[in-house]
């Protein structure tokens, strides 16, 4: 048994509704019923055998001791085969079966836990692709990640080892104690007193340990904060000659963490020696008393040594029971969180959706209102119409609601009032995929996945041929650049595509849209992170892409805005002015004011 592992699991995480979580978790085991039954039977036999073995060894040793004494008395030489061949063979067989059933249950359980967790993970994968975007805006990526990885690993580990151990431990403890009471009531009571003390002591240490672990967690959070900040602000630190000061600050945080570490580690390290010390003291007392009993002839040598085997067998699981229960609870809490995620609300598609094979590209917002929080509307009564092939520039400061507009167009979010139509069809009547099929999107926040360049370009059309991919890359003017990469189109973009500059990434996403050839576009013009030359390239590529398509451009560049068929000027979530450049300038409103302050 590995005490380290158990101690690492000290966490006071308690599920809110244990019963329903357990029921639901066991529901997942339904398909593995036969396997589980075999496991359960194996466990019972294994436990029974491990209780029976020491008892039988007591018989063997007593028999051995008797035979030896007889041999001494009669003066005949001692012969094993003659006196105890049968017993030893039986013992061997017993051990063989112990091993067999142990092997059975752990071999079978190896599948059970992992299959269960795999099932949960697959469900999450499906769920993640159906959840409304609201969910992703509300939950941090890191949190979702840890739910799927470490939370579920915890469940697997607890089911795999923890639960088995607990069941085996409980069985062994109960069985052993019964045998021990049968051998000697006073000795067993004495042993239990020591164990009670031991449990109290370990519980005290565990509680202290919990506080220290929290403290350690805090200091590590502080330290992380400090170094992260300093690494990010490295240039400033160097420019201002603050190296020495920063080293001192890091050192301070590291020292705080060192002290917390030292304390927490010490407590962890001393739990086991403490348990062992108490168990040994119990052994001392038991040894002395049973020695007396042997002298008095009330206990045989076989029984005494068997009793010691039971002491060893019971002491550890008894003191660790509380740890095991803790980690079991933590695992249940993890399961509960997973279930919560699986129970998140979805917005299903309509049953008989309207079909729109390839839209012409006219889009209308009709009295649309929307708020991320339905009680606090951001957009109120927005209406506008875009004709097929038109270019619509969306202008406004950060937070003016440009992204919201895109979210609604793509139905990442649902409107709270009014409707949005494409070619006169209400988008809410279509399936989401049917709608999105007509859209192409290039965002500033480019997203590439771990795969080859070709795979990334073909993301929207996995069936595209290499020729089509290259044609798309040529249209986006990245073909040359791709060819300069080590393996050309087969270069693997790893690690968040760190080997590409922001501009190159954006060109790749433009190629992606070229390949899909959608009738409607959503583009986000590059701003800061791209150098001027690449910016011009991107501008050109976008221009080519927009030809003959209805395009919504989140525009930052004057030329784009001036050329637009319509400008939507947004402020605080609403479109406050719309019209082309000339009309809006003539109007002399907010757009005109911005135009004169920024662009002239």
């Amino acid at each position, binding site marked *: 048994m590995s005490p380290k592992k158990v101690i690492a699991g000290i966490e006071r995480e308690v599920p809110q509704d244990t019963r329903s979580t357990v029921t639901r978790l066991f529901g997942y085991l339904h398909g593995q019923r036969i396997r589980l039954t075999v496991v359960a039977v194996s466990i019972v036999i294994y436990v029974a055998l491990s209780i029976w073995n020491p008892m039988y*060894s007591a018989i063997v*040793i007593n028999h051995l001791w008797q*035979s*030896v004494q007889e041999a001494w008395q009669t003066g005949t030489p*001692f012969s*094993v085969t003659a006196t*105890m061949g049968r017993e030893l063979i039986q*013992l061997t067989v017993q*051990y063989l079966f*112990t*091993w067999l059933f142990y*092997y059975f249950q*752990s071999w079978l359980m*190896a599948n059970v836990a*992992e*299959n269960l967790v795999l099932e949960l993970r*697959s469900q999450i*994968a499906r769920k*993640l*692709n159906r959840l409304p975007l609201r969910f992703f805006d509300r939950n941090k990526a890191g949190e979702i*990640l840890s739910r*799927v990885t470490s939370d579920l690993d915890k469940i*697997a580990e607890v089911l*795999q080892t923890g639960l088995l151990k607990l069941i085996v431990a409980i069985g062994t403890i109960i069985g052993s104690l019964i045998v021990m009471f049968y051998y000697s009531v006073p000795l067993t009571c004495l042993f239990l007193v020591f164990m009670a003390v031991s449990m109290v002591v370990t519980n005290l240490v565990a509680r202290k340990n919990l506080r220290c672990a929290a403290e350690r967690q805090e200091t590590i959070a502080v330290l992380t904060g400090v*170094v*992260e900040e300093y*690494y990010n602000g*490295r240039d400033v630190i160097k420019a*201002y*000659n603050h190296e020495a000061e*920063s*080293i001192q600050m*890091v050192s301070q945080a590291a020292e705080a*963490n*060192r002290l917390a*570490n*030292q304390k927490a*580690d*010490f407590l962890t390290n001393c739990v086991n*020696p*403490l348990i062992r*010390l108490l168990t*040994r*003291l119990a*052994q001392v007392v038991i*040894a*002395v008393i049973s*020695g007396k009993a*042997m002298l008095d002839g009330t206990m045989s*040598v076989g029984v005494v*040594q068997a009793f010691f085997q039971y002491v060893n067998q019971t002491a550890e699981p008894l003191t660790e029971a509380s740890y095991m229960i803790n980690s079991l609870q933590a695992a249940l809490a993890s399961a509960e969180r997973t279930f919560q995620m699986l129970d998140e609300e979805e917005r299903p598609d309509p049953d008989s959706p309207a079909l729109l094979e390839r839209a012409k590209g006219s889009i209308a917002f009709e009295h649309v209102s929307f708020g991320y929080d339905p009680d606090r509307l951001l957009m109120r009564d927005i209406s506008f119409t875009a004709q097929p092939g038109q270019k619509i520039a969306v202008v406004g400061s950060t937070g003016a609601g440009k992204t919201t507009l895109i979210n609604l167009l*793509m139905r990442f979010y649902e409107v709270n009032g009014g409707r949005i139509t494409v070619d006169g069809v209400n988008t809410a009547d279509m399936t989401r995929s049917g709608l*999105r099929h007509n859209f192409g*999107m290039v*965002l500033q926040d480019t*997203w590439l*996945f771990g795969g080859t360049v070709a795979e990334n370009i073909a993301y*929207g059309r996995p069936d595209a041929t290499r020729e089509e991919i290259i044609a798309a890359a040529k249209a986006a003017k990245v073909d040359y650049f791709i060819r300069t990469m080590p393996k050309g189109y087969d270069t693997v973009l790893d690690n968040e595509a760190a080997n590409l500059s922001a501009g190159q990434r954006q060109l790749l996403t433009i190629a992606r849209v070229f390949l*899909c050839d959608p009738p409607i576009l959503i583009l986000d013009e590059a701003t800061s992170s791209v150098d*001027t030359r690449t910016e011009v390239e991107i501008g050109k590529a976008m221009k080519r892409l927009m030809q003959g398509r209805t395009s919504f451009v989140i525009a930052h560049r004057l030329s784009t805005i001036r050329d637009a068929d319509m400008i939507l000027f947004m402020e605080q979530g609403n479109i406050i002015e719309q019209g082309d450049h000339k009309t809006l300038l003539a109007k002399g409103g907010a757009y005109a004011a911005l135009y004169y302050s920024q662009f002239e």
Partner: protein
Amino acid sequence: MKLILRFLKPHWKLCALTIILLIVDVAGALFIPTLVAEILNSGTSGATFDAIVQTGFQMAVVSVLAGLCAILGGYACAVLSAQVGKDMREAIYAKSLKLSVYDFRQFGTASITTRTISDITTIQFALTSTLQMVIPVPIICVLALALTFGLDAQLGLILLVVVAAVLLLAWGIMRKASPLFRRLQKLLDRMSTVLLENITGVRVVRAFNNEEREIGRMTTAFADYAGTSIKANRLFANLDGLSFFCINFFVVVVYWLSGGHISAGGLQVGDITAVIEYAMMVLFFLMMAQMVILTLPRALECCERVRLVLDHTPEIEDLVLRDVSFRFQDAEEDTLGHLDFVCRRGQTTAIIGGTGSGKSTVASLILRFHDVTDGSITLNGTDIRDMTQQYLRDHLGYVQQKAWLFSGTIADNLRYSRPKASADELMHAADVAQAGDFIRSLPDGFHAYVAQGGTNFSGGQKQRLSIARALVKKPELYIFDDSFSALDFKTDAALRKALAKESGDAAVLIIAQRVSSIRHANQIVVLHEGRMAGIGTHEELMATCKVYQEIYESQTKEAKEA
């Protein structure tokens, strides 16, 4: 591994103490069954109760002693690993400050943070476990065998065989398990990557209607992980079960043999318990060690990642011009054609050529006032077109031919690129630029007023001040664009000498007309009508390059005539 030793070395006394304490604990653990056996023997051989009590007392003493040592050892171990962790973190941070911007960016903020925090936490944990669970193993094996041999040579021999068998088994399973565990770690990373891609890219996934494909990608990653986990779990089911069976088999053998040995008088009946207990202890420690050893590859990987930062020696970072051509818009002919050379760190590269040879255009390309028409310019391995202009210019110190100063004090001007520069640094830069003397001769010194454009100073003074300004910045690449032309020959020479010391491992690019300014450069590029007419040292060029010889001769003649 070496990394750990390097950080343990300063604390070797504590380290030794920890190990000694742990050894005493282990020895105590083995001594207890010996004493229990003695009591059993006393009980069967009809000794007095006093003798039993006495042995019991010994047992209590040993228990307390071993317990104390274990607790103290645990404390020493905690102190040690906490200290090592702190030392490592401080070392990484200090080293990070020494890295160049380029090197630091190669690691990345996120990665260095991980290395500073969680990697070292993993190392600390591994260190603690190794000290407590792995180091005692050989000791316990030796002690247990010695004690068994002491009781009965034959049993000792058999225990040796059994322990060897378990070790062999463990070794075999470890060999199979460790690649499995490495793979598990990779699959775990893969799982996280795919998940993160799905979370951060959720809009794109949905925009392209690729939900089903992503579900497939995730499920594959999850299934691979589950499959490998199952394999690993099964291996351990094998190991646990088989090791237990080995020991139990040993128990049967002990029972089998001990009867004869006891009747022959060599062994006592209580000793059976002791021998079995020794075997159990060995098995227990072996299995614990096994668990720890399996986690070690990951810790070693963390060590390696930390070491890579600590031992990082900056690559030689150069400015490389590869087949650079440049043509002004609407021009018919290239201003520069096929330039191909490298400015190395710690070296001086010079470009020489007549008026209209295009030598100043080179500087404007490096500064990205213009972009190359063909070919590429890379700084520290990155194309300068892929850097922000800000980043690029942060690394360059540029001194123009026509020095321009701002209105304000001299100190203001020198601090222009680095406002926090200390007075000492200003003084030093001014001295290197040969401007220290005349600044000190001014009534207000560094606080002397500079008119706009620096018109209240002579051309040579302005040039020296603008050189000092670049020196204060401490850039990685200096570009002196004909900056020495307004200096007299003596000042020119003194300045170049001081500069050579000052520029250290920065790269220096001097664009000049005068051979005398550049003849000691490590390499000289000769430009003629926008093409490279030669490259090499002064001596080499004098021997081979006609254009260079002509320039040299025309200038020495001028000098003689003047």
